Every structure is written in C-alpha cells, then in structure tokens.
C-alpha cells in the first residue's frame, strides 16, 4: 500500500513523578484516515496527544512528522508542523464573534476581518460546517463552539487534527453531524486522530483503532475486522460482560415530589424553569440532557444548596408518613429533620470530598458533628473506612492516604460508599461513572441496583445515553432548565431521548426568531 504516514511515534515514554503515563508507545497515523485512540480513563490517551500538540515534552522517544524527526516543545511548534488539537474544554473568548476567535492570535501581520470571513466561509462550505461567523460565542451552543474550535485549527492550516473526546458534550444527532464532517475531511486527505472511550463511535467512524492500556500500547486493528467485545478485551485486558441488570421496580411509592421548581442564577438567568417530577422508592429515575442544562442546579436545589425562586420540594417520610417541605432548608437542617438524603455530586474532590484529607477524615464529613463532645471521634469513621475499602475493593496504600492520591475510580468508590453507608431513602448521583474504568463503572451500576432493591429512590444524572437506557426505569429529559419529557426506560430509544434533549432549545430559537 502506498499510504503516506503523517505522524509516527516511536518509543514515547512520559512520567509524572512515579506515575508512568505513557510507556514505549509506538503509533502511526496515515494521511486520509481516521484513527481512533481507544483506552479507558487514565490509560494515557490525552497525555500522548498532548505531547504531539506541544503541551508536554516526552521524556523518551521520538516523533516523526512526514517521516522526518520533529521536536515539538510548544503548541506553536505543533502548528508549524500543521498539527491542530481540539481540546475537551474549549478555549474561546466569550464576547468575541466566531471570526474574531478564529483569527485571534495569528501573527501574520494583517488583520482583515473581511478577507478572513471569506476564508472561513470557504472552509465551512468545503466541509459542510454550519456556522454563523458573526455570532458571539456566549450565545452559542456547545456544538457550535466546537465547530469554531475545529475551524480555528483548519484556518491555521492544520492537516493533522486531534480531537479529544469530541462527542462527550454532543447529542446523538450532533454527533452524527460531526462524524460526517470528519469523514469529509478524511476524504480530503487529512489525518484525523480522535480520542474516545465509546466503542460504538469507534466502530462507526474510524478506519483503524489503536488501543492503549495503563499507558502502554496494546495494538492497532482495522475497524472493519473487529468487534465490540474484542476491543473491550484489548482495553481492559480481560473478557467482561457488558450487560447491566434491570429488575422490575417493587413496592414503589412516591418519595420525593418536586413542584414548579424555578431557580435563577446570580446573573439573573433562569437555570431551572418550572420543574416538576416525582421520584419513587424502589426505582431508578434517570435524568438525561446536554451538559449544563440545569442538572446540577436541580440536584443542588434538592440537597439544600441552591436558593429557589419558586416551587416546593416535598419529602414523604416512609417512617412517619409525614410530608415535609425541604425548600429553603440548609443541608444540616434537612439532615436534622430525619430526611435521609444522600448526594454524590458531580465534582467529587471539589464538593463531595476533601482531596487533601485522608479516607477516615472524609468519612467523617457527614457525621463529625454528631454528639455534644468538643472533640472528634475517629473510631467509627475509621471502621467505616476500613469496611468500604474492603467491600468496594478500594485500591489505596492505607486508610490514611489523602484521597486526591487515589485514582478516579477509587475516589468515587470512597464517595459513593460513604453516601450509601448513611442508609439513604433518596440517593442522588450525578455523573457517577465519569472517568471511571469499565470494571468500576459496573460496580457503581450494581451498587445503584442494590439500593433500588432496598427501596431507595435513586436519581441518576447521566451522560451516556446507552447506559441510561439500559439502567433506568424512567428517564426524565431536561433541556435548558425545563423538563421536556419523561419516557419509560424499557421502551425508549436513544434517538427519542436525543430529540427531547434539543426540544426546548429549538422551541426557544423559534420563539426568538
């Protein structure tokens, strides 16, 4: 075959202290192909790509561009090799228009928005982007912002494009659109490298897949010749079952009734708009939606962390049958009312736990204030810590290790373990498997199912629609702070949820237009 290698990595090694992020990685990407880099979180995908784009410098090994050795010490060097990376977190100036962001920082001496605009429009048309070049960034959706980022690197002449988990923030429909554009770029002879951990995307999009596991290069296969289970085996290192159990809910009764919840943020924007729903005991209620549609505010409102403009949150106490309104109560008051509400927030180390404290002290967060003594009692938290380490197989040197030193999966086990240990009647979890490897993810799903079987009302905010559809009994879809639909998890499809996710937004746009 006369394929032209665009970029070759030879024996790349990168260490961070004791941690080896990449070890002797060899990789080749050709022009005119889409290469997926597949691996679990922490397998070194992003580190590897950061070395190509000049953010890190490899400790060992060489990088070849067009078969010539290249030394890339800064993102600027990367650009001179025509390498462009689209990061997970966008780096755009909010108050600038698309065009202004795209030409920003270019040092070619001439700043002429008119010719630039023409140039950008040409690129858009060539690959089928859908972009209003004069639109300001802060009025854009996530997908539009991503488009700006992609055009930005194309405008700078990149012909090796690296995309770091580009679909994490997109709906299924937006994803399909992006994939079509990427395919067109490939046919144009560009080299596309996409980092992902979603198997079905790999299979539908890429030509070849390179798999990393724990920083090491496992192998490369042609997508046409592989299957989902083979890829999983390469990723995890052993065969695993990819089925989530779902029992029929038993003895359901209303546990948490939310009526007309409205929440306004500091800037005066309505983040939750007249949200009403009921969470029932013994079932898992999924909440789907594009990231930032009000999921966080919804859970925080229930947990007593948000100021509400309107609405009520009624808790039906199963012991006393009393109905209590949790509105305007602090987390401490809610606990003292005997409401057993557990909450696994999205930001684990920034909210759920204290990174610099050890496991024992983190166990105490919920219970330290009990009793009248001035002093802390560490005996019970210590026992709890030992129990969680044992039962949930937390990998840690000891119970006195600061939790920030643990890997993402183990941090989450500590947090979920603590919240479940409080034997809740309502359990809210936000993105509980984000950043977790497959084994830890399934352990979390099993824990949620256990809680469901115990009669807990579980509220699960998720981003992976495949998982939501497999795990949840009911799925509530939230779009721009509004509930756009509630569907049955057993009969719905990803596409149906995807449509609901964008529903209110389109309505809003129509109303404005």
């Amino acid at each position, binding site marked *: 075959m006369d394929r032209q290698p665009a970029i070759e990595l030879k024996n790349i090694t990168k260490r*961070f202290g004791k941690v080896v992020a990449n070890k002797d990685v060899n990789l080749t990407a050709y022009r005119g192909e889409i290469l997926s880099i597949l691996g679990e979180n922490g397998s070194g995908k992003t580190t590897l790509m950061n070395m190509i784009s000049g953010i890190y*410098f490899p400790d060992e090994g060489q990088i070849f561009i067009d078969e010539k050795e290249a*030394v890339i010490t800064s993102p600027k060097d990367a650009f001179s090799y025509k390498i462009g990376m689209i990061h997970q977190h966008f780096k755009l100036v909010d108050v600038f228009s698309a065009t202004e962001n795209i030409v920003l920082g270019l040092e070619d001496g001439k700043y002429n928005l008119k010719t630039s605009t023409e140039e950008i429009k040409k690129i858009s048309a060539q690959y089928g982007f859908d972009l209003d070049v004069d639109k300001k960034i802060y009025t854009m959706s996530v997908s539009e912002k991503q488009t700006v980022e992609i055009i930005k690197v194309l405008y*700078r002449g990149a012909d090796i494009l690296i995309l770091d988990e580009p679909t994490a923030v997109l709906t299924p429909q937006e994803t399909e659109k992006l994939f079509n554009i990427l395919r067109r770029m490939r046919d144009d002879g560009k080299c596309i490298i996409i980092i992902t951990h979603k198997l079905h995307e790999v299979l539908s999009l890429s030509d070849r897949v390179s798999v990393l596991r724990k920083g090491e290069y496992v192998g490369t296969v042609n997508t046409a010749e592989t299957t989902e289970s083979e890829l999983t085996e390469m990723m995890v290192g052993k065969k695993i079952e990819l089925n989530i159990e779902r029992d029929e809910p038993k003895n359901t009764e209303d546990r948490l009734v939310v009526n007309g919840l409205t929440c306004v943020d500091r800037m005066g924007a309505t983040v939750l708009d007249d949200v009403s729903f009921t969470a029932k005991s013994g079932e898992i209620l999924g909440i789907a939606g594009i990231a930032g549609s009000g999921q966080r505010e919804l859970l925080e409102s229930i947990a007593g*962390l948000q100021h509400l403009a309107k609405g009520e949150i009624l808790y039906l106490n199963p012991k006393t049958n009393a109905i209590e309104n949790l509105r305007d109560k602090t987390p401490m008051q809610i606990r003292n009312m005997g409401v057993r509400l557990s909450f696994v*927030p999205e930001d684990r180390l920034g909210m*759920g736990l*204290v990174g610099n404290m050890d496991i024992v002290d983190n166990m105490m*967060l919920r219970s330290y204030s009990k009793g009248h003594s*001035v002093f802390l009692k560490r005996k019970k938290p210590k026992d709890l810590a030992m129990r969680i380490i044992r039962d949930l197989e937390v990998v840690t040197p000891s119970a006195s290790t600061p939790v920030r030193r643990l890997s993402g999966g183990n941090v989450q086990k500590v947090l979920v373990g603590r919240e479940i240990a409080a034997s809740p009647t309502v359990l809210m979890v936000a993105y509980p498997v984000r950043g977790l490897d497959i084994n830890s993810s399934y352990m979390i799903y099993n824990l949620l199912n256990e809680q469901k079987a115990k009669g807990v009302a579980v509220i699960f905010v998720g981003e992976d629609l495949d998982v939501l559809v497999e795990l949840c009994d009911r799925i509530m879809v939230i779009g721009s702070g509004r509930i756009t639909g509630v569907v049955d998890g057993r009969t719905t499809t990803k596409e149906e949820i995807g449509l609901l996710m964008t529903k209110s937004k389109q309505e809003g746009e129509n109303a404005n237009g």
Partner: protein
Amino acid sequence: MVNKKAIKKHREPPFHVVKRDDMPWWGAWGIRVATIIAAFLLVGLLSMALSGRSLFETYGIMFSGVFGRIFEGRTMMLWKYLQEIAILLALALALTPAFKMKFWNCGAEGQALMGGLASIICMIELGPKLPYPVLIIVIAVTSIVAGAIWGVIPAIFKAVFNTNETLFTLMMNYIATQIIAYYVYIKGGGSNVINPVEYGNFPAVGSNDYFVNIILVAVITIVMFVYLKYSKQGYEISVVGESQNTARYIGINVKKVIVRTMVISGALCGVTGMLLVAGKDHSINVNSVGGQGFTAILMSWLGQFNPFIMAVMTALVVFLRIGVAKVADTALLNSSFSEIMVGVVILMLVGCEFFINYSFKFKHNKKEAKV
C-alpha cells in the same frame, strides 16, 4: 493564512522541571535539615568575611550572644532568648487557624498592637484603683476582646461582602499604628514616650521576669495543636480551607466558621499584645510588635501549620536574629545585617520546598527506535 515560516531546527531544552509526588518523609526532612546547615554555614561565612574573624570565632560569638554565659550557670540570656521565641511563636500560632482556613490574615501586627493598647490603658487608668488579681483579669479580658475585634472586622466583611482579607487586614495595621501613636502622644506628653508603668505587671517567678510569658505560650502551643487536630472546630476549619463547596455540601455554615476563626486568631494576637505590654515592656510604642506580625506569617508557613514544628523553626530564626545581631554589633556592622541574614535564611528554607516538590530532568534520553 498558513504559517509559512520555515520550520526551524528546534533545539531540545537543556532540562525540564517535573512535579514529584514520591519524596519520602525522610527525604523531605533530609533536604530541610541540609538547608538549615547550609544556611548556617552561609551566614557564618558572610559574617566572617565582613567581620574579619574566623568562622569558629564567629559561631562562638553567635552562641554567646544568644545563650550568654550559660556554662557558668547564668541563665539570664537563655530566658531572654526563650521570651523572644515566645512572642514570635505566639503570633505565628495566632495566625495558624486563619491560614488553615485559607484566610490570609496579614494583620497580626495591628491585632497585637490593639491588644497591647488595651493592656496599657488598663494598667495606667485602672492600675491604681483595682486590686492586683482583678486588674490582671481585666487586662486579660480587654486585651483579648480588643485583638478579637480588630481581627473580626475584616472577617465579617469577608463573610458578607467577600472583600479581600489580605488588603483589609494590612490596612487595619496602619489604623492600629496610628491609634497607638496618638495614644502615646497624649499620654507621653511632649516626649512621645510612655514611661514603664508599675501596675499590672506580670509577676516574676524567682528572678525571672518572663516566666509567665514563656509558660503561657507553651500552653497555647499544645492547646492549638489539639484544637486543630482533634476538635470539631479544627476539623471545620480544615474543611472550609480546603473547599468551601464541600463545606456547604455537608452543611457547615461557612460564614460562621470564618468569623469564629478570626475571633480566635485576633484574640490570640491580642494575648500576644498583652504579653508584650504587661509581661515584658510595661509600656507601648508604635514599634512594640516590631514587624514580628509579618515574620510570624513566615513562621506559620515554615512550620507547615504544625505548632510543634513552628516552635522549632521560630527557635532557629530567633537564634539567628539575636546571634547575628551580636556578631554585627561586635564588628561594628550595621544592625540591619542581622535582618538581612534572617531574610536570607528564611528565603532558603522556603526555597528548599521547591526541591521537595519538583525534580529536574537534565538529559533527554533518546531510545533509538526499534525497527
């Protein structure tokens, strides 16, 4: 539009800095102890060069400057040394709970001055009227309250309006200094000096005037250690300092903790002011605290917020301050020489933390590609 600049031959950087997480505790302390030894050597060599004495002689002067003729059974200098440690350590301890909460209290100077002011007012105005035990109690209470008020004002503004506490506490220092200047002006008459007051002085134990101060600070050190490590309030301080979001999530009233902790911090500064006025000087002037409120910030950090390590570090710095001052004195050097040396040593101690947290990678080991 395309960057058409020819790709220049990039050179590899000679070294790069890498964060390390794997330094064992003995390695970290090894580096710190080595730094202290190196610092002493540097101070000795510089003093030697400037004073013209031998290294051995220089250290001799330093030692006798701090401990006096201790081998002849004269302990007066030793007590003075301990007293100096006590004052600086008390201020560092006062700042520590605030620092653990990531509230950068730079106002120890002013808070201590206000505590001292309360003491001197009681000593002058109430001294002749009240019996001694009552007077001491009144002095203690008013000093604590004065320091606490000076500390809590910025805390309230921080809690309610989220003002910057660093600037606020610094400004409060200037106000305190001016109040002292004014008070000295009216009480000292034209001389601008308040003569030592004979009422309300802390009792001497044996022949030692400073015994009460030293014991009090020793007790505060232990209490602070226990408070931070084993009390519920200490735990709340740590949580608020590490993450206010986590604190809110578990239902800690963050504003309350900020205000409460600054009451404690300010109150302890007030106590230090009392130790300075009632326990040592029996008078007051704008330089009574003498910048130690700022040195205390460094001591709290060098002690890594651990009261016992803080005590050791304070002993070290005070040793240098007195010892080098003696060397400078005997060699007719400027008195600022001692301050400069203390600054150099503190800088070295702070700088050595960099080598504990980071390592250098010098050569880029190229492995030839296997074919």
